[in-house]
């Protein structure tokens, strides 16, 4: 009998799989989803010198990316994402002979990419350096050879093939940090610094023999950051900024020559910067700059007779660069001015005169912060005039390319590659709708005045509608008109677009169109249109920096008030630290318009202490604002807005918070005690999760906005098993290695109010990265099993049992009996970088889990696959319940990859949010790239399909009515006839 059952089981599982697979039709690609690719914060940037000059920009970034960007339109030519973390860290980048050479000294590799195609040409192993030591690259022997300084050795590679010529281990590496290498004629110079003591240098011959090894005293030198290396010279600035030291390393018996800067009338100098100018005039003469007395920019040159000479002093320069073109050497500078403007200036270094054709006022918005780096190319127009292209890399990680006319050619907001937190805010309703809501919001019950108000609002609505209609008609006519008119009216067009934008940024019928508010690590805040990902507004607060929580930096974003409470405006705030004081800083803004709160200081509200914990209250104040409660490091509460302190005082008996001391492994909970000095936290519970080598790495609460409508699940025998739905439950993960090289981690389920340990389990020989999804009555987490060398996913599901203890209200202080924890684990074929659960408005749609994988795919996996009740041996009951039989390996169907071939990399988080449609959940995956999509876990059950046949259904309905009428007539006639008989 059993044999005969098998095909049925097979068919059943096929049927299930078919049902659970959600694929995309070809024509749907890109309809609801979008992807943006970024490269991150640029560290090294060069214009490609091969082929057409300045056609391509070659960049390497903090996010371990090497990329080529088209200089005409700012689009990515090619991009390589190297290993994450330290092993892919790019220490240096050199562009030579169509090759982009990068040194990843953490991983011990030099890689050469073709600058046009981006293909990997060669890869050569070099000794690896620890994290704190940076390697250096230099060219030697007419660009044929590459000098690589990494891991206490100097290696010479053939720059065409990557073949090693020779390698030598440096001596005295324990005390000296070798950081610079350079070619000098036939020799190779390697220089190192022993902070507070001396500078060492080694000169090698072409064949790798030590020609000279010596060190000379430099007791004043505290750190290598004081020094720069250029053209065989080591140039250092004393710590008080009054003396410039420089030494020629290519000569015998080198020593520092001190020159006081005060002889040039300069004081308190800092920011030593070197420039490369290789024309004959400056051969062998390094040029460097220092900033003195805040902003004055002073350019020095070290002449052949080791004399220092002041070339030029400029006021207020933010960033500068020397560009060579044919026989001229130009110093290009940029300096910010008031009101979104900046001045770019070009100065001919030989004559010292400003080149008027290169000096221009450019549009440089305040939200870019200070320009950090300039890169440029000069070229000759057909008419013989000099043209230029300037790339500005700013404090906010943005890349802006300017043309000579000062026009912005393109802009890349690379800060979006480092998003820290995201919220999707509902757009406001249109004006007409808002007026209607205004009427309902009023609590005046006078009948006559209500009637008058109703009459006037409706009249206004009609008026607004007519106006709108007229505008629209006008706009259509206007657009036709525009086709004939030339660019002169572009500005007007832009204005009109803005008007359209306002109209455009209103809520749609199903609330699918939202404003994505993204906070990035540099303190820049973006408002993105969820429909296409375009930046709607930007705000920059350079003083706002992330704080550390569970070993990772965070910059949480809170939505105080949504758009649902018209006429009260929506409000969001970001909690971070002040860059200099390291105290808490709260920055409040309007999430739709992107305007900072009016009565807030420009940098935000500053707290008196650091941040221990912060939470939004679920209760709203009289203005529908949810106050933010911040627990500072001195265990005092800070309430924002200040006026709500009384409300929090009222709620104090039921306000509990907890914090974790991650390194000490202590988790402790507080209640709120009103005292004379305001609200103070008092320790109520403590857990000691400290184990040898373990640290708390994750604390994952439930989402506050999640709603659960099914209190239990119906079993095969028609009884109900109730879910354990503790809203205060928190998942705590402590991981580490236990001293003997064996990694393990523990999972704790803790009630955040009472501190009760609901469940705890440990995984031996397992390590992170761990991602946790905590939703409803279940927890899903993934980890790496070291013993079996595979990724595993585990699920814990909590049930109260067959009876529910308290059906109306949950209290952590009077908890139900401990829940039954069901658990199961699976292997997952792939590496997981982030996970999230879908969420819908009412919570009746089934849940899916979104898994961002390291290969760039985002998998949508049905929760049914992660059900601890999946039976090993299916019974009739389990089949009736629809439980899938247990298979240890989770499927990874390709058609369930929601981003099809739009791979996204280094995903750090997935943000899901409910739309107005119960079937639809909006998803934003963020990391190096951004990907936005809609997912429908139970398919689109509440919307008719695009290809719904209205005509057919309509004609059938009409036909049915006709037929029923006809038959009624016929029946009546027949009945009459019969009666006559």
């Amino acid at each position, binding site marked *: 009998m059993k044999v005969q059952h098998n095909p049925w089981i097979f068919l059943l599982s096929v049927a299930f799989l078919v049902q659970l697979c959600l694929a995309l039709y070809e024509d749907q690609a890109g309809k609801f989803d979008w992807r943006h690719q970024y490269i991150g914060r640029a560290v090294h940037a060069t214009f490609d010198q091969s082929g057409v000059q300045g056609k391509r920009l070659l960049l390497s970034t903090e996010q371990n990316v090497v990329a080529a960007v088209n200089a005409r339109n700012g689009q990515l030519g090619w991009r390589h994402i190297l290993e994450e973390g330290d092993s892919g860290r790019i220490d240096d980048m050199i562009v030579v002979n169509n090759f982009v050479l990068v040194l990843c000294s953490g991983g011990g590799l030099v890689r050469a990419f073709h600058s046009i195609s981006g293909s990997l040409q060669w890869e050569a192993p070099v000794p690896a350096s620890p994290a704190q030591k940076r390697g250096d690259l230099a060219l030697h022997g007419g660009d044929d050879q590459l000098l690589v300084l990494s891991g206490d050795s100097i290696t010479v590679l053939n720059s065409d093939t990557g073949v090693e010529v020779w390698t030598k281990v440096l001596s005295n590496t324990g005390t000296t940090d070798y950081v610079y290498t350079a070619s000098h004629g036939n020799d190779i110079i390697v220089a190192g610094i022993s902070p507070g003591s001396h500078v060492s240098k080694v000169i090698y011959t072409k064949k790798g023999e030590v020609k000279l090894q010596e060190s000379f005293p430099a007791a004043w030198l505290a750190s290598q950051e004081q020094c720069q290396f250029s053209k065989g010279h080591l140039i250092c600035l004393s710590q008080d900024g009054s003396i410039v030291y420089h030494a020629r390393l290519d000569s015998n018996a080198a020593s520092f020559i001190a020159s006081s800067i005060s002889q040039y009338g300069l004081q308190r100098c800092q920011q030593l910067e070197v420039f490369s100018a290789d024309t004959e005039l400056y051969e062998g003469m390094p040029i460097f700059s220092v900033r003195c007395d805040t902003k004055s920019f002073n350019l020095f040159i070290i002449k052949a007779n080791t004399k220092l000479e002041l070339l030029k002093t400029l006021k207020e320069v933010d960033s500068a660069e020397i560009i060579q073109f044919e026989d001229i050497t130009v110093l290009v500078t940029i300096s910010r001015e008031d009101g979104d403007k900046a001045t770019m200036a070009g100065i001919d270094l030989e004559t010292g005169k400003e080149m008027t054709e290169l000096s221009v006022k450019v549009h440089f918005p305040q939200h870019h912060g200070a320009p950090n780096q300039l890169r440029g190319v000069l070229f000759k127009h057909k008419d013989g005039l000099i043209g230029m292209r300037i790339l500005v890399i700013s404090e906010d990680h943005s890349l802006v390319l300017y043309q000579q006319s000062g026009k912005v050619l393109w802009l890349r907001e690379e800060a979006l590659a480092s998003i820290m937190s995201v919220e999707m805010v509902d757009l406001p309703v249109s004006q007409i709708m808002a007026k209607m809501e205004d009427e309902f919001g009023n609590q005046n019950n006078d009948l006559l005045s209500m009637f008058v108000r109703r009459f006037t609002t409706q009249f206004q609505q009609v008026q607004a509608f007519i106006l709108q209609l007229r505008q629209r008609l006008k706009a259509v006519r206007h657009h036709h008109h525009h086709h004939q008119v030339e660019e002169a009216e572009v500005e007007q067009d832009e204005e009109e677009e803005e008007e359209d934008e306002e109209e455009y940024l209103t809520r749609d019928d199903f609330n699918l169109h939202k404003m994505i508010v993204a906070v990035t690590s540099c303190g820049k805040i973006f408002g993105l249109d969820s429909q296409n990902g375009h930046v709607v507004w930007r705000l920059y607060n350079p003083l706002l920096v992330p704080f550390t929580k569970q070993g990772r930096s965070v910059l949480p974003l809170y939505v105080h008030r949504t758009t649902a409470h018209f006429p009260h405006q929506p409000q969001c705030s970001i909690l971070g630290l002040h860059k200099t004081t390291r105290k808490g800083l709260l920055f409040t803004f309007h999430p739709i318009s992107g305007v900072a709160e009016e009565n807030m200081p420009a940098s935000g509200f500053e707290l008196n202490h650091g941040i221990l914990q912060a939470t939004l209250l679920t209760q709203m104040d009289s203005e529908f604002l949810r106050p933010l409660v911040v627990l500072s490091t001195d265990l005092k509460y800070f309430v924002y807005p200040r006026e709500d302190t009384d409300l929090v005082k009222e709620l104090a008996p039921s306000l509990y918070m907890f914090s974790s001391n991650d390194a*000490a492994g202590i988790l402790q909970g507080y209640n709120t005690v009103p005292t004379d000095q305001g609200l103070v936290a008092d320790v109520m519970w403590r*857990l000691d999760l400290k184990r040898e080598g373990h640290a708390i790495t994750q604390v994952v609460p439930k989402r506050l906005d999640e709603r659960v409508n099914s209190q239990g699940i119906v079993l095969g025998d028609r009884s109900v098993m109730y879910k354990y739905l503790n809203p205060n439950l928190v998942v705590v993960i402590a991981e580490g290695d236990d001293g003997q090289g064996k990694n393990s981690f*523990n999972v704790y389920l803790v009630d955040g109010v009472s501190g009760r*340990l609901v469940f705890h389990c*440990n995984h031996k020989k397992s390590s992170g990265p761990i991602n946790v999804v905590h939703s409803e009555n279940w927890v899903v987490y993934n980890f790496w*099993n070291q013993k079996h060398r595979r990724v*595993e996913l585990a699920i814990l599901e909590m049930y109260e049992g067959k009876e529910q203890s308290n059906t109306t209200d949950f209290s952590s202080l009077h908890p139900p009996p401990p829940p039954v924890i069901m*658990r199961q*684990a699976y292997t997952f074929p792939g590496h997981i970088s982030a996970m999230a659960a879908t969420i819908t408005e009412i919570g009746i749609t089934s849940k899916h889990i979104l898994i961002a994988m390291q290969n760039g795919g985002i998998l949508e996996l049905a929760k049914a696959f992660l059900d601890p009740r999946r039976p090993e041996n299916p019974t009739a009951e389990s089949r009736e319940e629809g439980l899938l039989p247990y298979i240890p390996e989770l499927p990874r169907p390709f058609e369930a990859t929601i981003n099809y071939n739009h791979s996204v990399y280094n995903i750090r988080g997935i943000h899901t949010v409910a739309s107005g449609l119960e079937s639809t959940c909006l998803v934003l995956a963020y990391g190096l790239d951004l990907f936005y999509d809609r997912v429908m876990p139970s398919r689109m059950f509440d919307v008719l399909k695009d290809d719904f046949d209205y005509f057919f259904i309509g004609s059938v309905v009409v036909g049915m009515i006709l037929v029923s009428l006809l038959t009624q007539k016929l029946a009546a006639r027949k009945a009459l006839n019969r009666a006559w008989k």
Partner: protein
Amino acid sequence: MPKFCSVLAACNALIVFVGLILFSTQVAGDDEYYDTLSSLNLEHTFDSGLNPVYSRRGVISIHSITSNNADIDQEDSHTPQDITKLKALVKSNGMYRVRIMSRPATASSPAQYVQSFTPACGLYESSLSDHIEIHLDASGNLIGMSIDSISPHCTGIQPPSRQMQEFNSTVDLIQTTSGPFPETSTYVQKIEQERQEKMKGGQVDNRSFIAKYWMYIVPLVIIMMFANTADPNQGGGGR
């Protein structure tokens, strides 16, 4: 287990030996039922507000973690003044707090405690009856505790003060379990078993594939035939 041993003492020795090898901190057999593995000092406070003063309440003796065997000795746990304090705490809707030292003080760090609390009214109305859970990790270290009074909801009753003489407590030990792992081996066994059954069954039922599954194949073929005949018409329409 003892029935394999002829001499009780030898059995004990064997068990202790095995215990030493496997888990140096765990008790292996029933024979050592009443040996104390470790004892924990339970402290409590009836104070409210910041910086409460803790006093000794009793000692929890852990006999066996695996069989959840612990008892609590709490003589002289409190004074009549404490009961007055408790009443005040009930009146102010306060919390009763208990703690146990988990790590003694060292030169570099102060002593660490695990701590829990329960509404004072519940404890008062249940006449000092409570339930204590002690949570231990895999190697038997204390990680947390929780305390619950027997009556969960406060009704405002006044229990007679003679019932307030002594705490009436139960203690449960909960040890970390090991997390779930994929049941690959059992699954492979199951598949293997099914395969063997199939092979056995295959000897009995050695009809051909078509003979066995004709009832699925015939409808499929018919459907496909219909689909095929429908297609050319559509193609014709397109032309």
